[in-house]
């Protein structure tokens, strides 16, 4: 059975990855998960300087999902390169570093510093709904997205994945802009902006008032957007949004994703990534699928 997939010239042993922000830098889950079995680890977003993130509460559960407003807390690229990258480099998996910034210059600084490291690909976060400056501002306007993508592409030594926001009128417009600017791949979807009110306290459940919705509640939206983007562009797509099982992963692959990321499911079970991978392989066996490529985008034919 063949589960290998290739994105921008990089071959992954299987299409199951972690979704940025839900798996730390891998270290936190090292006692639970055989990291070397994963297709890739996608790290928590890292910026040029340390970011403190938002006030708490940062987390709220909602029906079938959760809201988060972490605000991209991170220790900055220097600590990341010294501590987190060497940890991941021990494993037989690919490393995708998620990059965030408040200005184009900040993104470029991180991208440049990662140039001669063990990072295999860069995932550019232009879609976090929880920070006021930068981030999502670059991902909600096609011209801005085109501009930042092309500037990053000029500096990046690794393939560039643009992570798109679902909080737009037409996600295919963003997908096309990123592709036209030279992006090597797309990740979608980031979280959907949501809100929860604590009626007992007559106040917002999150200190940030709004947060990003993730978990099984968003899966149908994510599958639809992956399908639409797969129709609109030729570059590969990493699909994510509420994947809880092998069957969910298969659904994204059929919609046109070349790989998938497991996010909120890590909180339901710290071993979720491996369970999704095992579940996907079982499904392939039971359904006589010998090469994962037989099902990638198969709903389109």
């Amino acid at each position, binding site marked *: 059975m063949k589960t290998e997939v290739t994105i921008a010239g990089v071959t992954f042993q299987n299409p199951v990855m972690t979704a940025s*922000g*839900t*798996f*730390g830098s891998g270290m*936190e*889950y090292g*006692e*639970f*998960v*055989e990291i070397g079995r994963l297709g890739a680890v996608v790290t*928590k977003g890292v910026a040029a300087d*340390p*970011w*403190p*993130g938002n006030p*708490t*509460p*940062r*987390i*709220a*559960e909602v*029906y*079938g*999902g*959760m809201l*988060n407003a*972490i605000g991209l*807390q991170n*220790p*900055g690229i220097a*600590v990341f390169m010294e501590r987190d990258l060497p940890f991941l480099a021990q494993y037989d998996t690919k490393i995708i570093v998620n990059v965030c910034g408040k200005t184009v210059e900040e993104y470029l600084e991180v991208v440049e510093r990662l140039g001669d490291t063990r990072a295999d690909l860069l995932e550019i976060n232009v879609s976090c709904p929880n920070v006021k400056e930068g981030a999502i501002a670059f991902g909600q306007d096609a011209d801005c997205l085109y501009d930042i993508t092309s500037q990053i592409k000029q500096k990046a030594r690794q393939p560039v994945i643009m992570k798109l926001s679902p909080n737009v009128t037409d996600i295919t417009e963003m997908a096309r802009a990123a592709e036209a600017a030279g992006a090597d791949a797309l990740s979608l979807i980031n979280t959907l902006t949501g809100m929860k009110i604590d009626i007992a306290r007559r106040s917002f459940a999150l200190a940030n008032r709004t947060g990003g919705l993730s*978990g*099984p509640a968003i899966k149908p939206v994510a599958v639809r957007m992956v399908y639409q983007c797969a129709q609109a562009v030729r570059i590969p797509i990493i699909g994510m949004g509420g994947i809880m099982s092998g069957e969910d992963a298969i659904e994204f692959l059929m919609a046109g994703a070349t790989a998938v990321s497991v996010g*909120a*499911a*890590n*909180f*339901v*079970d*710290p*071993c979720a990534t491996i369970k999704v991978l095992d579940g996907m392989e079982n499904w392939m066996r039971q359904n006589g699928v010998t090469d994962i490529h037989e099902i990638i985008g198969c709903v389109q034919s």
Partner: protein
Amino acid sequence: MERKRKEVGTVISQKELIPGIFDMWIETKLAHQAAPGQFVMIYPRAESTILPRPISICQAQKEAGRLRIVYRVAGKGTKEFSGYEAGEDIALMGPLGNGFPLLAAEGKRAVLLGGGIGIPPLLQLAGELPGEKVILAGYRDGHLFLQEDLEKCGPFYAATEDGSVGVRGNVMDALTVHRLEGDVIYACGPMPMLRAVKQYAVQKGIPAYLSLEERMACGVGACLGCVCKTTRKDAHSHVKNARICTEGPVFEASEVDIG
């Protein structure tokens, strides 16, 4: 190496101690390593829920492999747990967090302060803490819980908000009224109480170990949901926002910026 995972334990018994507060014993190998002040994540079965619930360890019989949790029904998850009967499976992970530092009490007089649903973790602490100690617990009203268990561990004083039992007011009021003194404080309870404890400890110039809580998602330090502002940069975050699930839940009062 044996990998950690979400474990399945068995409910041994469950009863409602006072309205809305439940007492459950669980058979689980997680008990073997449990230390006072640590917590476990308990996973509801309902598929509409996706987050585990962090619940403090009230007692651990390490050899027998039994954990006791005493928890308040606060939402969908704890409501579900409160319906579990003896013999049922319960999914849990842990023990998590640092726990209370026991050595800090050696040769000292310890004051243990618990407020409301912050009282349960004091029981295992009171049992394991060496040396002289007093225990103060603050309740809303005359519905006391864990009183008998705590009385076995040392001198016990209650405070109630409505004055129906013990000193009227909170644990700090009880401390003053009974003229109790100590060299080290261990505390768990609501944030206003912990702020008062910190203020008191600073005034007296003694260390106070505070157990904090916050909304959590992963419980293993990955999601950065449950941070607390700290006075110094910790080795992990580099931004004075330490993870309560990993660097905590117990912090020395001077380490945290709780206002």
